[in-house]
């Protein structure tokens, strides 16, 4: 046994001297396989725990200890996970709409005009994106819960409405989107807009008829990324809502709530099943829009 292994190894060493490409090939398969297994295992693990009946969950091996698919129905009876997901989607759509509208105006200005103050203004936006969410928390909490006076009037109490989460998250998502959109607008050739302007189209007309259609791919990219970022966010989604589904609490509370509210037994299978259900909308989006996500992420992260 050992001698065959030894022989095999010798042969491998010999071919690798004569044919180094082969070593790289095996390195490629080895590294990639480990990487894929490492990445996919936690998803598989959620599935294992979800289908194992809860009373059997202890000292688990790598395989399910039973098969109980009805858990995916029980989840909806135990907690309104679909309402939490719905709330998250509504908040994500609100922020996405705000970010696309405001971000494309700014991206257009930064991407197509060279004006005094361009550099400092872009730098300011970059600096904001460096600040941790914790540095915004207290003032925004007091502002959005109606505990501040502005011009002699108390601010409206937005706590437990989607606005309390959507406002802070727009600030968080805007800088990144502005940078991605600036890059996209820069790539539109100057000639097209100039031609439209020479032919007598107004400034806004050129923006609407020439620039908007051409920047549609960029806008969809930013839209998809913003949606995912907001759907996934934890900090403000957690702190700006009280946790009940009817008060617009997002997915964060649907999942974390199971941990905080557990009483005598920990419902591991419920936790796993709820997590799987919560990840499905995002997984679908990733499958559909993977090209957009990759181009947006690399453009955004590398520009900043």
């Amino acid at each position: 046994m050992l001698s065959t292994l030894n022989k095999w190894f010798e042969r491998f060493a010999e071919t690798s001297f004569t044919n180094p490409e082969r070593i790289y090939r095996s390195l490629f398969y080895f590294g990639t396989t480990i990487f894929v297994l490492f990445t996919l295992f936690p998803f598989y693990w959620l599935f294992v725990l979800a289908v194992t009946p809860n009373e059997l969950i202890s000292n688990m091996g790598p395989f399910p200890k039973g098969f109980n698919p009805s858990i995916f129905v029980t989840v909806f009876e135990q907690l309104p996970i679909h309402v939490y997901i719905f709330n998250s989607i509504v908040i994500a759509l609100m922020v996405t709409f705000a970010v696309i509208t405001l971000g494309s105006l700014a991206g257009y200005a930064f991407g197509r005009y060279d004006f005094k103050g361009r550099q400092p203004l872009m730098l300011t936006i970059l600096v904001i994106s460096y600040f941790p969410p914790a540095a915004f928390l207290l003032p925004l909490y007091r502002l959005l819960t109606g505990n501040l006076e502005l011009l002699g009037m108390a601010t409206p109490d937005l706590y437990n409405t989607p606005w309390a989460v959507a406002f802070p998250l727009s600030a968080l998502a805007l800088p990144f989107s502005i940078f991605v959109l600036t890059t996209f607008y820069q790539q539109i050739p100057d000639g097209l807009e100039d031609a439209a302007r020479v032919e007598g189209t107004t400034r806004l007309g050129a923006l609407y008829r020439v620039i908007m259609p051409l920047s549609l791919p960029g806008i969809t990219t930013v839209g998809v990324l913003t949606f995912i970022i907001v759907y996934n966010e934890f900090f403000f989604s957690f702190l700006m809502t009280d946790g009940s589904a009817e008060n617009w609490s997002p997915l964060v509370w649907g999942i974390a709530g199971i941990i905080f509210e557990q009483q005598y037994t920990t419902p591991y299978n419920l936790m796993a099943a709820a997590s799987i259900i919560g990840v499905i909308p995002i997984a679908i989006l990733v499958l559909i829009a993977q090209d957009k996500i990759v181009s947006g992420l690399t453009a955004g992260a590398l520009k900043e």
Partner: protein
Amino acid sequence: MPEHSSPPLWERPIRFVTFRVEQLSDTQFVYLLLSPVFLLLSIIAFWPIVSTFEMSLYADSLTDPSPIGDFVGFANYVDLFTGDLNALMPRPFFSLENPLQSALIVTLVFTVVSVTIETLIGFGQALILNEEFRGRKWFRVILILPWAVPIVIFGMMFFLLFNSTVGFGSEILHGLGLISTTPFNSTQDSLLLLIIADVWKTTPFMVLLILAGLQSVDRDLYKVAKVAGASRWQRFRYVTLPLVKPILAVAVLFRAIQAMRVYGVIEVMAGCNTVPSLSCMVVGSFQSRYYGTASTIAFITAAIIGVMALIYIWKFREEIA
């Protein structure tokens, strides 16, 4: 003909706006476009930052109905480092006797260790992947998936992997002698698990960024180097590395800033008492209505990130610019 001279009523405001915009100079037009963004940002970003700083100059008010006490200047900052505010907090902010219990050190250790590991593995994997192979499209989906998992579910995944009742993950690492049997009761063990979790979530993202950098390298350069007799290592050392360095520098900075803010995954996975990161401390003291302390920690976190970013940008100014 009257229809031509007077447009329909609903078009009049649009025409008016279009006309007025046409009259503006380029600079005026640009600032008109930028004004909504900066208006929103001043309410939900600039003002909160200033206000947080202002609040950090006031003492906590423990008895008053208003949570903000007397003006104390920079006393909160001094007290945080000398340990005079520790009584208010579940864990000290900074302490050399118990380094792994104090927020500042835990956060810095987490940031340095996880970003280093992620960059090394990410770079290695990106180099391996930098060639054509079948199933590339599917592989890309696998790379994006961990990045796209909501933080709360990400925390839940690793709670379920390493929870001592469930077993499996914690048993394997315990068998290797890395952690105790109940890892979520110990800061040291939880920190290790947190780093493993973070490596899982962000390494694929690093691969994606570095791969984009590698693919922007002109293939002809490799051919030239090969013809000139450069070995694979030399091609890596003198062609790939210098060209990828700027992207690597930006990616590391980007990741380190994110790592310094770590919060949600801790809350779900191990609890903020076990792994007291800086953001955990801000939330903790905010929930106990210690507004002065909370804003001081928040502002110190922001300042550390700022200084880190400045030093880094200064050091790598040629690569980044």
